[in-house]
C-alpha cells in the first residue's frame, strides 16, 4: 500500500504517517485533532435553543427560524419546549418582575453546559420600558449572559450574528477549564421571590438591614 504523500488539511501539525500508534493501512483514513476541537465543533453546530418567547423579539426569533432566514443552516433550529432538553436560552423580550422567577427557574432546569443570549434592548438592559415598575433592568442582573444582541427588536440578521458570536465563544472553550466539569461549577441561581417587590435572594440580608427603620 502506497504511503500517503500529503497530510489531510487541518491536521498538518500531526505527522500521521510516522505515528507508530496508527497502523499503516489506516494512514489515509484517520483524522487526528484535539479533543477540544472536536468537542466544541460538535457542540456549536447542534445547539438546541429553548422554545421560549417573551415579547416582541420572540416574533423576530420565529421569523429567523422560518423559511426565509432559516436557522437550520447553522444547526440551531431544533427548538425544545422543555428546558431539560435545551442548551441555550434566548431571552427574547422584556423581562418583567412577575416573569422573572419563572425565567430563573427555567434556567436552573436546563442541563449544563447552558448558554444565555440576551436578545434585544429589553433583555439587555430594560430597553424602552426600563423605568417601568414591573420591568427588570436586564436579565444579566440574574443570569450570566453570553451574548448581548442590540436592537428593538434585533433583525433576524442580527440574531444570526449573535448566534455566530456564541459559536465563536464556544470554539474558544477548553474541556479542561469549562466550569461544568470543575468542582462546584454548578451555577444555580436562587429563584427570586415576589414580595412587595421582586426580591433577589442573594441580597436578603442587605435588604433586611437597609429597610430596618
Amino acid at each position, binding site marked *: 500500500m502506497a504511503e500517503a504523500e500529503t497530510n489531510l488539511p487541518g491536521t498538518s501539525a500531526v505527522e500521521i504517517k510516522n505515528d507508530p500508534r496508527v497502523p499503516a493501512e489506516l494512514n489515509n483514513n484517520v483524522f487526528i485533532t484535539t479533543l477540544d476541537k472536536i468537542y466544541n465543533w460538535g457542540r456549536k453546530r447542534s445547539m438546541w435553543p429553548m422554545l421560549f418567547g417573551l415579547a416582541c423579539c420572540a416574533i423576530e426569533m420565529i421569523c429567523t427560524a422560518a423559511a426565509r432566514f432559516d436557522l437550520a443552516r447553522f444547526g440551531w433550529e431544533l427548538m425544545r419546549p422543555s428546558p431539560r432538553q435545551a442548551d441555550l436560552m434566548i431571552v427574547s423580550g422584556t423581562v418583567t418582575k412577575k416573569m422573572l422567577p419563572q425565567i430563573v427557574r427555567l434556567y436552573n432546569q436546563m442541563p449544563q453546559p447552558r448558554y444565555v443570549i440576551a436578545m434585544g434592548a429589553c433583555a439587555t438592559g430594560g430597553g424602552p420600558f426600563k*423605568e417601568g415598575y414591573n420591568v427588570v433592568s436586564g436579565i444579566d442582573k440574574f443570569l450570566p449572559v453570553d451574548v448581548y444582541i442590540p436592537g428593538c427588536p434585533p433583525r433576524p440578521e442580527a440574531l444570526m450574528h449573535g448566534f455566530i458570536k456564541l459559536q465563536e465563544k464556544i470554539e474558544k472553550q477548553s474541556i479542561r477549564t469549562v466550569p461544568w466539569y470543575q468542582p462546584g461549577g454548578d451555577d444555580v441561581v436562587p429563584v427570586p*421571590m415576589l414580595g*412587595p417587590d421582586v426580591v433577589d435572594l442573594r441580597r436578603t440580608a442587605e435588604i433586611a438591614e437597609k429597610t430596618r427603620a
Partner: protein
Amino acid sequence: MAEATTTVPPAAKTAARAEKAEKKPVVTLATLTPEMASLQQHFGADLIQPAPYEGVLITDPARLTEVTNFLHDELHLESLTSATAVDFIKEGYIELVYHAQHITGGAPLCFKTRVSRKDADTVGLPSLTPIYPGVEFQEREIYDLYGVRFNGHPDLRRILLWEGFNGYPMRKDWHEAYYAQDTKPYDTRWPAGNHKLDEERVPWADNVNYPPNFNPAEYTRNPDEGLYDTMYKEAPEQGPTDTPYQNTGIKTDELIVNMGPQHPSTHGVLRMVVKLDGETITDLKLVLGYLHRNHEKIAERNTWLHNIPYTDRLDYITGMPNELGYVLGVEKLLKIKPTERADYLRVIMCELTRVASHFWSIGFLLNDLGAFYTPALYFITEREFVMDLFDEITGSRMMNNYMRFGGVARDVTPEQLDKIRVLVNERFPRAIDEMERLLSDNEIVRMRTIGVGYLSAERCVAYSVTGPVLRASGVPYDLRRADPYSLYDRFDFDVPVLYGGDVYDRYRVRVLEMRQSLRILEQALAQIEQTKVGDIQAGKKAYIHRVPAGEVYSRVETPKGELGFYMISDGGQNAYRYHVRSASFINLGALKEMTVGMKVADAVVILGSLDIVLGEVDR
C-alpha cells in the same frame, strides 16, 4: 429622523412656559346627546350631570348599578366596551370612566362616577359584572392599578401584578424606583445634559423599592393568593350557559394543571390554570401580567410624540393600526386633520398589516392544531413581503414609528407603490387561494375546529368581544363601518360575517377579511395617485406638542378587534391619563366560557383562534 428640529429654548422661555402650564385650563362641560338627555330626564339632573369634556357624571356612585341597568335595558347599550379609572389627585377623587355602545354602531356613550381616593379600597363601588360580564377583567385591572374595590365582583384579585405588591402603581402619588420627575423631558437630561444611569441614582442600584421594616426571610405571602380558592371548590353541576358540561362517564379525580407561562401553545407568556376531569376542562382561570411592562405609567410621563413608538409595542404584530388609533386621538384633541396623501398611506399600511397579521394568526392556529410549524412557514413567508415593504418605507420591520400627528413620517416612492400593487394584485390573492385550498376543506382542520369553542352572539356582545371573533358569531360589527374613522367611509368593502361562532368560522372570517383588505388596498392604491406627492404632513412638525386640555376616546379596528385609546390632556406636553383598551385583553375574558366542557387539546386551539398578543393583553 424626519422631524424638523426645534431650537433649544433658553431658560427664560422654559420658565415662562412652566408658568403658562400652571394656569388651570378652562374646563368645558360636555354637551348632552339625546341619549344622555333621556338618561338625565329619567334620573333627574341631580344624579346625572354633564361631565367635563365628555359624557355624563353619575354623582352618587351607590346608584351606579341602577343607572347602568337603565342604560343596558332601556337605552339598549348592549356592550360595555371600555372601563378605566383616572386619578385626580388634586381634587381628591378617582374617576371611573365607562364607555358603553350599541352593537349596531355609532359613537359610544361615556358615563363616569367618582369615588374619593381615601374610600376607594375600603368602601368601593358596585361592580358592573352582573350587567356586563365583559367588564370583569377591566375591573380587576382598575383594582390592581388604582386600588378601587368593586363590591360584588366574582373574583377580585390583582390581575397584572401579584398579590402582595406594594401599592397601587397607577395612582399619581405612587412612584416607581427609577422615578425622576413627573414629566419628560427630564430636566437632568435635556437641556442640562448631565444624564446618569438610573442604577447610579437609586438606593438599591436596581429597579426595586421595599417598604420599611421588610424582612424577606420572614415574608410568607403567596403571590398566587386566592387563585386556586374557587377552583378547589366542588365543581358546579353545570358550566356557564352555553356549554353545559356533565360527566356521564367514568368518574375520575379532578386535576389542576398550569399551562404556561412558558408553554409553546400560549402565544407568549400567558398562564392558563385549568381544572380537568379526565381530559375535559371543568374550570379555567387566566393569570396575566407576565408581560405587564407599564405602558400606561410610562406613557403618562412621556411627551405626546414620545408615545408613538410605544404603541408599536402594544400588539407587536400590528404596529400600524396601533399607531393610527393613538394618532387619531391626539389629532382630535389638537383639532388637526392629516393631509389626503397621509390618510391614504395610513389606510394602505393598516390594511397591509391586517393581511400580514391574519396570515400570522392562521399559521399559528395551525400550530395549535398540531401541524407544527410547517404550515406557519408558508404564511410567515407571505408576511415577510409586508415586513420588507415596511422596512423599506419606514425603516423598521415591526416597530414602524411611521405615523405623526397630522401625517406620516415618510412618503412612498412610485416604485414602492408598484411593489405594493404586485403584492395586492398578484401575490396575496394567490397565496390566500392556496391557503384556502390547503385548509378550508382539510378534513383534520374541519374535524378539530367545527363546533369547537362556540360562543353565541349574545354572549359575545355581553363579554364585549370584538374583532373577527365577534363577527364569526354573527354580529356584523366592524369599527371601519360602525364608527368610521380615517378614510374608511370612502371605500367599497364588505364586513364578512359568519354564524358558526366556532374556531372554524373565526378562521374563515379572517380569510374573508384578508380578501376585503385587498379590495380596500386596490381602491386606495388607485386613489392615492390623485394626491400630491410629498404632501404628507399637515401643519408644522414639532417635537413638543402642547395639546389643548380635553378628553378623547379614539378607537380603531385592528386585526384583533377594537383598540381604544382613552386620553386626558391637561393642556401640557404630556398626557394626564392614557389608557389602552385592548382587544386581546378583553377577548380573553370570554375564553372560560368557550373552553369549559371542551378537551384540553381544544383549549389550545380556542386560544389560538382568539389570536391574542401578550403585549396588548398585559401592556
